[in-house]
């Protein structure tokens, strides 16, 4: 107990004030500092972020890390087991080094998984915010078209569009983008409708701000977070679907390394080297689950509901 009674709190109310004063620096920190702090304390999210970062670096620096050429095979060393000297993860059905092909394959798999969500995020946010803010007929028009695409199960829609357009990376990306735009529109529309009716938006409008300014200054800041979180949760699905399209022969074409396509061409090898054959799928799984958990962690840290 301190003897400097002059500074010691005398009443409960003063004690409360003192506690608040001590907490003040913590409270005044920004929203993002709080998010960052919560994220760092979440071991699962941190682990997932680290794994994804390592994978990202590995596929970016694939040419430096890969021990062999991704296309150069040899009939003499087909389907070696995992742990073969010089071929750490074995070789594929054409005698190409698996480690090398997995490193290079990640480039296309990540690209095809993330790009559709990124494009859909931009397009879906624009259309959804427009529908939510404008309301009325604009809302009707955008949301009814969205309903139509909702009437297809997502895998079926992706297969239908890329199946009709034919195999190819661009067609697969186009198909996946079309799959992800409608759900993002729905989320964007619903959060925008919620924000639009809040007092500060009315106040901004009443003080003469134009629609564009209101959306840019007052609406976007409040809706981008939830939409972004939702979009990150789609990356996992997108990775699985993108590799799935390649697995069906609709995405990448051989001999290009891509995890889904590698899984497909190695299917015939499951009786010879089963554990080599399932490696590309394990890569998809790890990426997908990490993106999923990272998205969950972000949602909690940013305190977004839904």
């Amino acid at each position, binding site marked *: 107990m301190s003897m400097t009674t002059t500074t010691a709190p005398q009443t409960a109310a003063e004690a409360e004030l003192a506690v608040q004063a001590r907490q003040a620096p913590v409270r005044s920190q920004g929203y993002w500092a709080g998010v960052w702090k919560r994220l760092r304390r979440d071991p699962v999210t941190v682990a997932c972020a680290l794994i994804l970062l390592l994978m990202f670096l590995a596929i970016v620096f694939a040419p430096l890390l890969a021990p062999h050429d991704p296309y150069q095979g040899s009939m003499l060393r087909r389907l070696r087991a995992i742990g073969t000297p010089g071929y750490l993860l074995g070789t594929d059905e054409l005698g190409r080094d698996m480690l090398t092909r997995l490193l290079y394959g990640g480039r296309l798999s990540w690209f095809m998984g993330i790009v559709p969500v990124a494009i859909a995020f931009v397009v879906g946010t624009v259309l959804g915010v427009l529908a939510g803010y404008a309301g009325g007929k604009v809302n009707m028009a955008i949301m*009814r078209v969205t*309903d*139509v*695409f909702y*009437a*297809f*199960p*997502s*895998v*079926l829609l992706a*297969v*239908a*569009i890329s*199946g*009709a*357009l*034919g195999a190819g990376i661009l067609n697969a990306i186009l198909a996946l983008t079309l799959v992800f735009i409608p759900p993002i529109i729905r989320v964007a529309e619903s959060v925008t409708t919620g924000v639009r009716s809040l007092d500060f938006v009315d106040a901004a409008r009443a003080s003469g701000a134009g629609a564009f300014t209101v959306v840019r200054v007052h609406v976007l800041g409040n809706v981008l977070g939830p939409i972004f979180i939702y979009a990150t949760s789609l990356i*996992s*699905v997108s990775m*699985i679907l993108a*590799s*799935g399209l390649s*697995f*069906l*022969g*609709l995405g990448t074409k051989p001999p290009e390394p891509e995890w*889904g396509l590698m*899984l497909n061409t190695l*299917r015939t090898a*499951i*009786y010879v080297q*089963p*554990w080599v*054959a*399932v490696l*590309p*799928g*394990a890569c*998809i*799984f790890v990426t*997908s*689950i990490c*993106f*999923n*958990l990272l998205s*969950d962690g972000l949602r909690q840290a940013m305190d977004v509901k839904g």
Partner: protein
Amino acid sequence: MIRYLIRRILYAVPIALAVGFVCFMLVQIAPGDPINAIVPPDAPGDVVEQVRREYGLDKPLPVQFGIWLMKVAQGDLGRSLATGRTVWSDLSTAIGNTLLLAAVAALLGFALGCILGGLAGTFRGSLLDRVAVGTAVAGVSVPHYWLGMVLVVIFSVQLNWLPAMGAGPGGSADWSWDWEQVKHLILPAVTLSVIPMGIVTRTVRGIVAEIMNQEFVVALRGKGLTRRGVFLHVVKNAAPNALAVMGLQLGYLMGGSILVETVFSWPGTGLLLNNAIFQRDLPVLQGTILVLAMFFVALNLVVDLMQTALDPRIRRA
């Protein structure tokens, strides 16, 4: 209620038409002349022109859509380019197989999802909760076509317990619940069930946790109701939303089984689609997608109506 019923059913009509239009457009966006979806590419020129006139492909697009729609309404989905049979003849057997697979997978996934989700929601924060959440995340994150391969490696290649391919001697046309048939169903059904398992676990956990936090549960406990009694109250409150999610999942299973069917060569709509894509057999592609999408539209309608009927809290005008 009756007004809502009528409005909801009427609303499904434009959606179904629009879905039909999207399916119609699939052939239009396909590279090359849409006529190639009807006659083989090596047909002589005068035959091509004759068919073009017969099918009305020389007319403007909206008229073509009308003609196509009339045919579809009469059950004519065209003919397969690869086999020459009507699309419907192949499709009808395939749908039976897919429905069988999807139904079994749904039962597996829903049962496990409800149990895991219910327990996790009741005992939030427990070890059990963490295991359930982990299982759910793994279930929705796993590329199921890969899981299928892993299961084949374990149970077909290594242990030699279950067959890796096909639907057994009978298929769905001559399906019987004996071991020879059922053993072909196990691996594909388990593989397909992981996604609904994950989603249902998450959903049920969320719903149950929310209900358990409500005051009426405390009140029921307070008045001394047995655990069983409280459980029944929670189930009654959770059922409408949980059933709605499960209903839609069945539709996703029907449409999403293409990858699993490809892995296991299960003779359903997915394998049919896969073959159609490889042979660029556009009528089969279009017909299959149309029928599956229409099934999904109908399912959406049924789920909405069922949810309204089951849940007195939803008062829709």
